[in-house]
């Protein structure tokens, strides 16, 4: 996109846009859930066992909602003349999915699980929610009260 072609292109480029650092991203999907303009999207690709992160710069309003909701600070917002400009070139990338050790379904991003293991006890993180419920239900004793 050449600069200064038309007023609309100029205005698009003058708008602050999110700067995405892929190394910090854990693919939790908070940014995609927070985005009201539909510029950020996250969709699972179960055949390839990956989750695809997609950014459409033309749809972005530059509101900065995604930066507030990102738990790791992988997205920040910057004016167009920022020196971090090259990072904005990331428009589509993908992250691996984690397989449930019990039922074998893909249930979350593997990086998100690794991030959670640093925050909460990781004894149950390898299982999907349905398998966790099943384990909790089985462990309920027949005679509590």
């Amino acid at each position, binding site marked *: 996109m050449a600069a200064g072609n038309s007023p609309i292109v100029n205005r698009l480029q003058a708008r602050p846009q999110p700067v995405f650092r892929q190394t910090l991203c854990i693919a939790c999907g908070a940014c995609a859930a927070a985005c009201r303009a539909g510029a950020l999207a996250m969709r699972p690709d179960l055949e390839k066992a990956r989750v695809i992160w997609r950014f459409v710069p033309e749809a972005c309003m530059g509101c900065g909602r995604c930066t507030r*909701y990102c738990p790791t600070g992988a997205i920040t917002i910057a004016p167009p003349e920022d020196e971090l400009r090259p990072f904005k070139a990331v428009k589509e990338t993908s992250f691996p999915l984690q397989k449930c050790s019990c039922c074998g379904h893909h249930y979350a991003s593997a990086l998100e699980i690794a991030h959670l293991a640093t925050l909460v006890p990781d004894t149950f993180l390898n299982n*999907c929610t349905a398998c966790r419920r099943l384990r909790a239900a*089985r462990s309920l004793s027949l005679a509590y009260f």
Partner: protein
Amino acid sequence: MRFVRRQFIIPDKAKCLGCYTCLATCTLVHKEAGAVPYPRMFLTPTAQGSVPLQCRQCDQAPCMEVCPVYAIEVQGAAVVLNEKKCVGCGICVLACPIGCIEIQAVRQAAATGVVLATSVLLPLILSEQDEKKMRKVAVKCDLCYFRPEGPACVKVCPTKALTLVNEEDIRLLNLQRRQAYASLIGS
């Protein structure tokens, strides 16, 4: 630190029939209160019978610790999720040890139109345009904190399989067990 005595609901495997009355009541009560009309509990079938599982209101709640928008907070005896703050990222779902939070989807405008689909199925049955109109929120048990008479599921269960337990009950139960053990080794 929480200074309120914690409470939670525990099911009885032997008494539960699997009739789904608790799930229906949960949906109805929360719909009337203006919350997302979805059941807050999960009927889980096991070999010994079905059990309705729900949030245990952990003291150091992992969901509360990992929430990026601080939408989960303590209100009274319950850990309550603020649906207005929730963005539906689903990190609390993964942090829950017993899997009793799920992401559900409602129509963007209000909670009146119910679409019976979980977010796991949404990408499969909806187009990308449809999905933008949906709002995803996490849904968890809040012990019906808006009801002064206590959780509705405990009241309606036909076989009284659900019990609301507080710290006093746990203390008494421990005492009973210690006494039973003491009489066992005394005899």
